[in-house]
C-alpha cells in the first residue's frame, strides 16, 4: 500500500531525505523526477503516487508519468512519452496525456516544458555565435619569455640604435636641405683641436686650410654655443683613439707631405667619432646630462694625452 502521507511525514519533516538540500530560506529537492525542484508536499516524487514530469535528453523532451497502479513495479514505474518538437503540439500532447490529472501537476509540467524549450533555443543560438577559445598559457614558458625579452631589450640598446640610424639618414641626405649643418664646421673644430695638441708645422697648414674654407661657408652662430660641448666630445674621442692615433701619427710623421697627413687624420678622426658615438658614448638622457659628463672628463683627459706625447 502506498501511504503518501506517512512517507511525507517521515522524509519531509522529521527524518532524513537524501534528495533534500536545505538553505536558509528554502528547501530544494535534487531528485531528477521533481517537476519544480523545490521540496514540497505536492512536488515530492516520492511522496506522491500520481506524479508527472518533463525531462530533456539531448534536445528531446519527454513526459514521464507515474501512477499508483504501477507502484509495485519499480522498473516499470515511469511511463515515458516523447513530445513533439512543435511547441504547441507538445502542449496539446501534455494536455491529452494528463487529462483528469490534478491542476497543479499539469500546470507545473507545462511550465517546466516551456523553460526547457527556451534554454534549448538559447543553446542553439550561442553555438552559432562566435565562441571564445581559451588558450592555456604555460607558466614556465611565460616566465622564460619574459626574461628573454628583458635580455633582448638590454642587448638592443634602442636609443643608440635609433640615434645612429637617424644620423645615417642625415648623412645620406634623405632629409634634403632642411638641416643646413655645414660639414666643414666640424672639420674646423677638429683642426683647432689638432692645433693645440700637435706640432707647429702642422698648424701652419691647418690655418691655410681654414682660411680657404672660411671664404666658402657660412657660419651658424648657434653652432658655436654648442661647440664647447662638441669640443669636449672631441676630446673624449681623442682619448678613445690615443693608441691608434699614436700609431698613425708615428707613421705619418715619417711621410713627407703635411697636408695629406692632416686630411687623413681628419677623415680618420671623423670615422672614429662616428664609431665612438655608435659605441654608446651618448647616454639615454637628454643633452644636459651629456654635456655635464663631457665637461667632467675634459680635466682628466689632457694629462694622459700629454703623457703619451712624452713617451712617443
Amino acid at each position, binding site marked *: 500500500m502506498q501511504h503518501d502521507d506517512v512517507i511525507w511525514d517521515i522524509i519531509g519533516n522529521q527524518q532524513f531525505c537524501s534528495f533534500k538540500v536545505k538553505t536558509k530560506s528554502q528547501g530544494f529537492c535534487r531528485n531528477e523526477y521533481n517537476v519544480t525542484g523545490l521540496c514540497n508536499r505536492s512536488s515530492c516524487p516520492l511522496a506522491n503516487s500520481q506524479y508527472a514530469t518533463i525531462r530533456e535528453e539531448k534536445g528531446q523532451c519527454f513526459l514521464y508519468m507515474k501512477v499508483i497502479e504501477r507502484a509495485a513495479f519499480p522498473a516499470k514505474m515511469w511511463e515515458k512519452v516523447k513530445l513533439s518538437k512543435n511547441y504547441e503540439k507538445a502542449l496539446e500532447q501534455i494536455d491529452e496525456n494528463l487529462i483528469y490529472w490534478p491542476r497543479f501537476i499539469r500546470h507545473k509540467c507545462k511550465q517546466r516544458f516551456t523553460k526547457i524549450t527556451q534554454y534549448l533555443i538559447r543553446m542553439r543560438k550561442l553555438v552559432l*555565435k562566435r565562441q571564445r577559445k581559451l588558450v592555456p598559457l604555460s607558466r614556465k*614558458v611565460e616566465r622564460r619569455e619574459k626574461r628573454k625579452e628583458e635580455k633582448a631589450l638590454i642587448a638592443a640598446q634602442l636609443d643608440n640604435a*635609433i640615434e645612429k640610424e637617424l644620423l645615417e639618414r642625415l648623412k645620406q641626405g634623405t632629409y634634403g636641405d632642411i638641416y643646413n649643418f655645414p660639414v666643414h664646421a666640424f672639420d674646423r673644430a677638429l683642426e683647432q683641436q689638432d692645433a693645440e695638441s700637435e706640432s707647429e708645422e702642422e698648424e701652419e697648414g691647418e690655418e691655410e686650410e681654414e682660411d680657404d674654407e672660411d671664404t666658402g661657408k657660412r657660419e651658424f652662430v648657434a653652432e658655436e654655443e654648442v661647440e664647447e660641448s662638441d669640443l669636449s666630445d672631441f676630446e673624449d674621442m681623442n682619448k678613445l683613439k690615443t693608441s691608434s692615433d699614436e700609431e698613425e701619427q708615428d707613421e705619418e710623421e715619417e711621410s713627407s707631405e703635411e697636408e695629406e697627413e692632416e686630411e687623413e687624420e681628419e677623415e680618420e678622426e671623423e670615422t672614429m667619432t662616428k664609431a665612438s658615438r655608435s659605441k654608446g658614448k651618448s647616454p639615454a638622457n637628454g643633452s644636459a646630462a651629456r654635456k655635464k659628463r663631457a665637461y667632467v672628463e675634459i680635466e682628466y683627459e689632457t694629462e694622459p694625452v700629454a703623457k703619451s706625447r712624452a713617451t712617443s
Partner: protein
Amino acid sequence: MDITEVPVSQDNKGKKKKNKKAKKKSVSQEGNEESGGVETKEEKMEKSEPAFPPTFSVSEIKNKQRRHLMFMKLKQEKRKQKMQIKKKKKKEREALGDKAPPKEVPKTIENQRVYDETTVDPEDEEIAFDEGTDEFSAYFNGLTNPKVLITTSDRPRGRTVRFCEQLATVIPNAHVYYRRGLALKRIIPQCIARNFTYLIVINEDRKVPNGLVLCHLPDGPTAHFKISSVRLRKEMKRRGKDPTEHSPEVILNNFTTRLGHSIGRLFAALFPQDPQFVGRQVATFHNQRDFVFFRFHRYIFKNEKKVGIQELGPRFTLKLRSLQKGTFDSKFGEYEWVLKRHEMDACRRKFQL
C-alpha cells in the same frame, strides 16, 4: 674510541676540521667509506690546498651540508684561478703596450647566432622580384595610401581602450571602432568596401592587451603577435608632448631573414610612404632576438653629429606567433609560418626573424 671517531670526523671535509686533519692523518687511512674522500683528504693534508682529482665530483657526497661546503670551496678555487689568469693577461697587455693583440670580442648571443639560410642578401634578385610583386607592391609603388582600422576583442577594458586611442594617434589615418561582438569575417569585407588597407585587432586578457592581429586588407597576409610590456603615454618617464598629426618616419632594424623581411614590410606599410620631416617624429620597429620593440620618438638634430631623441607615444613589444597568407581565417587559412615552441625555442641561438 679514537678509531670509531675517526671515520666520522674524517669524512667531514668542513673547513672547521681542517685544523684537526693533521692530527688524524695517521688514522685517516683506515676505515673509510668514500674512497674519493680519502684521496682528496690526503692530498689536502699534503698540499694544504683543496685539489680535486678528476674522478671526484661534488655531487657524490650525500650529506647536504658537507656537499655545500665542498661546492663553495670548489667555486672559490675556480674564481681564484680565473683572477690569476686575468691578472696575468693584464700584465702581459701592459708590458706589450702597443703591440698587444687586440682585445678579444666577447661572445654575445648575436655573435653566436646560428646562421639562418633564409637571410636576405641585399642584392638578391629573386627577393627583389618577389617584393616587387607581392601584396605590398601596390603600397610601395605609391599607389595606395594606408588607412587603418583599429579594434579590439569583445568588451575591452580601460587599459586596452586607452592603448587603442594612443595607437590611433601614432599611426596616421587610423580609426578606432568599438567591436560590439561582430564577427571578424563579416567586418573584413566591409572594411575592404570602405577602402581600408589595414585591420588591427587588439586582443585583451584580464584587462590588459596581450595579442595583436595585423591584417593587410585586400587579401594580404595576416600576422598574429603576442604583445607584452605595454607602456601607455602617461606611464612614460620624461616624455614629451603628444604626437602631432605629421606622418612619422619609420625605422626598421634587424629584420634579416625572409620572414623578417616580410614582417618588416608589413610594418612599413602601416605608415604613409612620404614622411613629413617637419614633424620630426620617428616610429621604430627594432627586432632583437625575435622580439620586435616598438618605440615612438621625437628627434632633433643638435648638429651634424648629435641627435637628441625624446620618447613620446606608447611603447610595446611584439613577438610573432603566426603568419597567415590570406586575410584572417583561423580555421581554413593557409599558414605561412607558425611558432612551434618545441622546435624553434629549443636552441638559444637560433632566431627566426
